[in-house]
């Protein structure tokens, strides 16, 4: 068992785990029927799924002797941007009333997505 072979085993393991999670994300997207619940599967399962695939790429690059750390950067940007897109899809769902309308907030007037500017309100 040379380090290379052990490395290859780890690459395989990470690839299998990663693709498993991505598959589950896709199944979730197909299975649920409400736009809001649908949002959950790809946004979360996707991050670890893709994270694992990128980790496999890092391990492989060290394994073949050409170390690469670009993948860590991809992971960082993915973790920063995934919540933003999820938030926007959620906002669109609320705005188009594609989901149950959420209960009113206890402390303020309304949710910012549902609030209408004063100039546009009907008399």
């Amino acid at each position, binding site marked *: 068992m040379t380090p290379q072979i052990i490395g290859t085993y780890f690459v395989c393991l990470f690839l299998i785990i990663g693709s498993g*999670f991505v598959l*589950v*994300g896709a*199944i*979730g997207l197909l*299975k*649920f*029927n*409400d736009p*809001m*619940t649908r*949002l*959950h*599967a790809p*946004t*979360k*399962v996707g*991050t*670890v*799924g893709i994270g694992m695939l990128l980790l496999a790429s890092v391990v492989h690059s060290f394994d073949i002797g050409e170390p*690469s*750390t*670009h993948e*860590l*950067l991809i992971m960082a940007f993915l*973790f*920063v941007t*995934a*919540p*933003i897109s*999820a*938030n926007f899809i*959620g*906002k669109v*769902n*609320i705005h188009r009333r594609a989901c*149950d309308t*959420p*209960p009113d*907030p*206890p*402390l*303020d*007037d*309304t*949710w*910012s*997505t549902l*609030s209408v500017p004063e100039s546009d309100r009907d008399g």
Partner: protein
Amino acid sequence: MTRAFYWLIPHPLLTLILAIVWMFLQNELSAGMIVFGFILGIIIPWGTSVWWPDTPKSFRLRKMIRYSFVVIWDIIVANIEVAWIVLTVPTSKLKPAWIIVPLRLKEPEAITLLAGTITLTPGTVSADLSDQGHSLLVHVLHTHDADAVREDIITRYEARLLEIFS
């Protein structure tokens, strides 16, 4: 001296992060690249300072690092939980819910961090903020006890963020 430092580098942390990102992009470590990374790290915050009106008054880096590890661990656990829900719970038995988290955080940066954390962890997506910014709307994928989820968010994440930004 300190005034000159803050005039040149208004956001020291941002400068450091930009320099590190540049080095990762280059995929190699040489003196020239480090110097160039820091030059970028000084120029970019300087040019974009118009869009950074108020920096949070305090930011505790060590607590932030600990918080990141808590969140990474939660993300891994959450992924397994959500994967399990996707595979085993039939759509008709799924119990999604809206929950409202009252916010004690004031800084926009802190609220953004909390919303991002919520989206990345256990079956929750932060969907909206109330118009005056006092509560956060969160959608839960599958829960029998919405209050427990809210308590969890408040004690586990918001309390820590309050400490980081206090």
